[in-house]
């Protein structure tokens, strides 16, 4: 019994990290249809900045917001310097630009920070919480809480604010959005800033558990992207559910079947789901006019 609970807690911890990363994918996709392959780097920028500041003696309560701001600024720079100049380039080109940006950001981080692995203490210490024979790190609660807060804020923002609706309109049909008076450039800019900020926040929260290094973003983005695909691209609820689902599948496979197959099991489930529901669990069914 305590075994099962331990597996669940492990799955929820890992799943919350995937979900936090996955949430960052949704906004940029919502605004532009672009899957941002530099999302993992935003996560690392958040973690590395926080680690560097904390190492300098800055208290975590100041370092954490500063790290999120740093990530946000990089997101804005990415849009202004790389995406916007590409203008009306097709989607595929924009996606490839984000791949280039991710390689560039990894290089810059090697120089700005270093090549070492970093970590800082959990916000509420590192002593495990115990109940019913299972254990959980207090930082896991921070990550889970963070994911839900981001999810709620994002769902409200996209669904109920003028700016959020502007982002959705931009994604749906940029030309029509311009015609009805939506500033699509600003909507895009906003989506990159918020996505980067969400990514950096995920990094700040997760680093005490996952550790971070300049090249950690690739694996982070891979798992986060898998969660996004499973849940349905562009849906905050999907990102959340997809993240927890993958985390739990991995933990259960590692616990009850074999740790060798845990990654494979997660990908098999994703494949099966996408066969039946190509738009993902929560994705909107879209029809293309030809």
């Amino acid at each position, binding site marked *: 019994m305590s*075994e099962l609970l*331990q*597996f669940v*807690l*492990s799955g929820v*911890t*890992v799943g919350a*990290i995937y979900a936090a990363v996955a949430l960052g994918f949704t906004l940029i996709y919502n605004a532009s249809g672009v899957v941002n392959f530099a999302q993992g780097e935003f996560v690392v920028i958040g973690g590395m900045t926080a680690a560097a500041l904390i190492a300098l003696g800055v208290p975590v309560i100041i370092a954490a917001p500063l790290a999120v701001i740093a990530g946000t600024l990089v997101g804005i720079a990415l849009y202004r310097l790389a995406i916007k100049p590409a203008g009306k380039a097709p989607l595929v080109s924009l996606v490839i630009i984000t791949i280039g940006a991710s390689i560039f950001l990894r290089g810059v981080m*090697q120089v700005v920070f270093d*090549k*070492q*692995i970093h*970590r800082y203490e959990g916000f509420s210490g*590192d002593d*495990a919480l*115990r109940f019913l024979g299972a*254990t959980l*790190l207090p930082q896991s609660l921070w990550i889970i809480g963070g994911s839900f807060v981001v999810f709620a804020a994002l769902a409200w923002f996209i669904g109920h604010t003028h700016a959020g609706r502007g982002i959705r309109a931009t994604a749906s049909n940029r030309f029509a959005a311009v015609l009805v008076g939506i500033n699509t450039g600003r909507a895009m800019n906003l989506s990159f800033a918020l996505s980067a900020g969400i990514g950096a926040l995920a990094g700040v929260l*997760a680093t005490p*558990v*996952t*550790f971070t*290094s300049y*090249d*950690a973003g690739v*694996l*982070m983005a891979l*798992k986060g992207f898998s969660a996004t695909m499973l849940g349905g691209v562009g849906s905050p609820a999907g990102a959340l559910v997809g993240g927890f689902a993958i985390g739990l599948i991995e*933990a*259960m496979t*590692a*616990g009850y079947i074999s*740790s*060798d197959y*845990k*990654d494979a099991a997660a990908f098999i489930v994703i494949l099966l789901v996408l066969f039946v529901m190509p738009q993902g669990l929560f994705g909107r069914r879209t029809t293309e006019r030809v």
Partner: protein
Amino acid sequence: MTLAKLGACATALALLTAAPALAQIKIGASLAVTGPASFLGDPEAKTLRMLVDQLNASGGINGEEVELVLYDDGADPNKARTFATRLIEEDEVVAVIGGSSTGATMAMAPLFTQAEIPFISLAGAVVIIDPVQKYVFKTPHTDKMACLKIFEDITKRGMSKVGLISGTGGFGKSMREQCLAVAGEAGVEIVADETYGPGDADVTPQLTNIANTAGIETIVNPGFGQGPAVVTRNYAQLGIKLPFYQSHGVASDSFIHLAGDAAEGVRLPATPMLIPDQLADSDPQKQPVVSYIKDYKAAYGEAPSTFGGYAYDAFQMVVAAIKAKGSSDSNDIRDGIEETKNYAGVTGVYTMSPTDHLGLNLTAFRMLEIQEGGWVPVE
């Protein structure tokens, strides 16, 4: 191309070929200075540069200056092969150090064998020197030796039932296979065998299963990078009380830093470089270890790593071979390296032979325990 341009090219070429005439002895190196294995190649390259400068400042080898031709292969076997060709054909080096990774080493080895140039690898895997190739040597211990050293300590403590939790990266995978292969002859039994991925944030399911295995007495974690620190933290989180062993892959202060209090009591096999102050004055390795650490800190303002030590030993053995033979002919250097006897380096005491191109035995590893955030030898 115009005639004038051709002429300019020819002059430039002449200048290029004329310039290195000053350097008498050319030693080549291809290391992973950048890329995923840069934590290996970076200290290795720094060590080689420092040693060459030191050597030339003190008059070189028998009055001849040494030139280091260093390439960055980024641990990419294809690049390494290209650089190996360049070292042989263009740079005409007399000996080569490098291959930070096993992949790069194995890609280069056939070329140096064919060109009859001695090649000392800085990579871990046992395949580099087993079977022995005439021109290929290496300085780091093998992962098989690490397994044997850990199992030796386990049986000494009266235990035999081992649970393995290994990383699925190259290092962890290779060491896991070696540990499984030598468990029988070492007198231990592997009763649990779990793995984790390189970026995994939580391995409590695997550790829960290991801890619940009937009769288990100790846990061994072959792995590299952040994985072992995550495993160690999860081990403490679950409150597991079994003796816990890490590998030489994490033998550095950054492991203690990353794993924190959870690392207390963890044992691992390592080189004497981690405990310079605790070595006996009679220890033949004390002097090289202390002076290498001091010089490296003076040159780069940071402590050297075990990996830099591999390059230190490789370079010193090449220099010793040239001095002993009084010749910088490639074949003479090869013979000289093979005749190395009781060379006390920073990694261990080397005695090469035609059947042993590593020259280390288990005494090169010291079993260390982490106590109060520092390293303490257990023997």
